[in-house]
């Protein structure tokens, strides 16, 4: 018992875990900030579309950006995937907004689950059922991120542009999460077996 308590204290003072948690919190704050900024732009665009006439939108979604013309070189506008915001159809803007919002929310959930795992490790409750579920949830969220970010639909003027762009790094992360879930499941099985050894 004393040994376990000492180990808990050591883990609670573990600097790597502490900084990992700080990074996760900062990432979440950044993502929430992005959501607010994005929502602000969409609301303002609805109230005063004229103020966004010189702004441009470029895709696909994985590399999607909305930028102010002041910071954009003129040569970049030649890109076929670049559209003036004034040309975009409203429903296209809503689709893009929902896509970006969904991705950001899903990333927040991924980080949230990761935080839960770090907290459990800090409390020396590493191989527990809740961590298995966390990794399975992370994998599920990553799959949704892959699906949501795999297509881009932009309706500008009288034409519509639809393209697929697969982010395989998300799939690799998803696979890694599933593997970690399986490792933790095995760890949990061994832990329970050890607990039931008299």
């Amino acid at each position, binding site marked *: 018992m004393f040994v376990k308590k000492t180990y808990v204290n050591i883990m609670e003072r573990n600097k790597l875990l502490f900084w990992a948690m700080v990074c996760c919190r900062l990432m979440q704050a950044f993502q929430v900030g992005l959501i607010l900024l994005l929502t602000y732009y969409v609301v303002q665009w609805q109230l005063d579309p004229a103020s966004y006439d010189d702004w441009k939108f470029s895709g696909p979604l994985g590399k999607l950006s909305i930028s102010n013309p002041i910071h954009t070189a003129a040569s970049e506008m030649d890109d076929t995937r670049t559209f003036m915001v004034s040309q975009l159809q409203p429903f296209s803007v809503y689709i893009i907004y929902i896509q970006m919002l969904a991705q950001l929310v899903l990333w927040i959930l991924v980080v949230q689950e990761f935080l839960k795992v770090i907290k459990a490790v800090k409390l020396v409750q590493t191989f527990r059922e809740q961590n298995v579920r966390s990794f399975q949830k992370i994998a599920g969220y990553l799959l949704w991120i892959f699906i949501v970010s795999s297509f881009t639909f932009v309706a500008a003027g009288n034409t519509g542009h639809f393209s697929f762009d697969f982010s395989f790094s998300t799939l690799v992360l998803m696979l890694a999460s599933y593997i970690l879930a399986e490792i933790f499941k095995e760890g949990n099985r061994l832990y*329970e*077996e050890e607990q*039931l*050894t*008299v």
Partner: protein
Amino acid sequence: MPIIINLDVMLAKRKMSVTEIAEKVGITMANISILKNGKAKAIRFSTLEAICKELDCQPGDILEYRSE
């Protein structure tokens, strides 16, 4: 599990209580309950040795194999 723990039978034969055996063997009541209820996944040789010593019996008196 086809391994049956006959600890309660041996305790009744020796007229010993669960609390008494737990104290003598040096294991918790929770672990004795796990053993008695057949929830245990494994038993250490040291625990088995201590139980056999206190109950003056053989491991076969406590453990029994019954095919399912």
